[in-house]
C-alpha cells in the first residue's frame, strides 16, 4: 500500500477487487448487521416485488468501501468522516471493484487531512455507490 505522505491531490488510488458477492454472504451480513429485511435473503420474497432475486444490502457495499479506505489509511491514519450514496443494485455473483481518487489534501489544526472520493463499481462501469472519506494523520 501507499505511504500516507504520498497521497497527493489528483492521485488515482490502486483499485481493489472484491470476491464475488454470494447468497451465503448476504445471510452472514444479515446476521452480523441485524438487518433481516427478506429482500436480502429470500428469493421468493424478492421475486414477489418484481426483482429477479435477492439483492445485497447497500451497507455491505459500503462495508467494501470501508475496507478499502482502511487499506489506504494503512491502519495508521484515522478515518473521521465516511459517507456513501447508494446507486445501482448489487446481486449475488456480482463482482465489485473499489476505486478512489485523492480529492483534497489539507492542513487542519496541525494535522493532515486527506479527502478521498470513492466508487464502488460493477461490470466495469456501472456505479453501485459513490462515497467520500476523510483520513486524518
Amino acid at each position, binding site marked *: 500500500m501507499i505511504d500516507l505522505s504520498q497521497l497527493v491531490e489528483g492521485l488515482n488510488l490502486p483499485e481493489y477487487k472484491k470476491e464475488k458477492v454470494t447468497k451465503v454472504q448476504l445471510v452472514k451480513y444479515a446476521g*452480523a448487521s441485524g438487518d433481516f429485511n427478506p429482500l436480502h435473503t429470500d428469493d421468493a420474497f424478492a421475486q414477489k*416485488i418484481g426483482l429477479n432475486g435477492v439483492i445485497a444490502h447497500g*451497507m455491505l457495499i459500503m*462495508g467494501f468501501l470501508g475496507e478499502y479506505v482502511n487499506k489506504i489509511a494503512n*491502519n495508521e491514519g484515522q478515518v*473521521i*468522516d*465516511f459517507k*456513501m*450514496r447508494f446507486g445501482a443494485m448489487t446481486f449475488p455473483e456480482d463482482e465489485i471493484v473499489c476505486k478512489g481518487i485523492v480529492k483534497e489534501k489539507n492542513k487542519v489544526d496541525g494535522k493532515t487531512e486527506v479527502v478521498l472520493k470513492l466508487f464502488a463499481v460493477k461490470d466495469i462501469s456501472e456505479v453501485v455507490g459513490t462515497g467520500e472519506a476523510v483520513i486524518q494523520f
Partner: protein
Amino acid sequence: MELKHLIGKTGNPFTFKVEQRHIRQFAQAIGDSNPLYTDEEYAKKTPYKGIIAPLTFPIAVKPDDENDKFDLGLDYRRMLHGEQQFKYSRPIRAGETLYCHMKVTDVYEKDGKNGAMEFILLDTEINDENGEHIVTSRTNILYRPLVTN
C-alpha cells in the same frame, strides 16, 4: 409534507455492549481480513492499541430490547436507504459499552420524476460512558410513494 411532524422525534436511549465476537462476524461477512478487527496482538502494535470495529459497524448498533426500538410509524415498503454517513471522533473499541440515542434531525422534500419525494435524516449519536462523543451515524431515508404491482 406528510412527515414534517417527525422532526425532533427521539427514540429511547439504549446501551450496546460491543462484543469482540460480533466485530469478527461483522468483518467476516464483509470479507474484510484486516487483522485490526480480529488479532489483539497485531492491533496492540498499531496506533489504535487494540481491536477496533470496522467503519460501518455502527449500522449494527441497535437496541437489544424490542421495546426500545425506534418506531417512526412508517411503511417500511416505502423506505429506501439513500445515503449513509459516519462522523467519527474516535473508533469503536471491542469490549466497550456504547450509549446511544436516535433522533430525526430533518425532513425535507425534493422534486423527483414521480412528484415530490420526502427524505428523512435519522441520526444515531453514540457516546461513551462519560458522554464523550464516539461516532454519529446518519441515515438518509427516501420515503417514496408505494408502487403497486
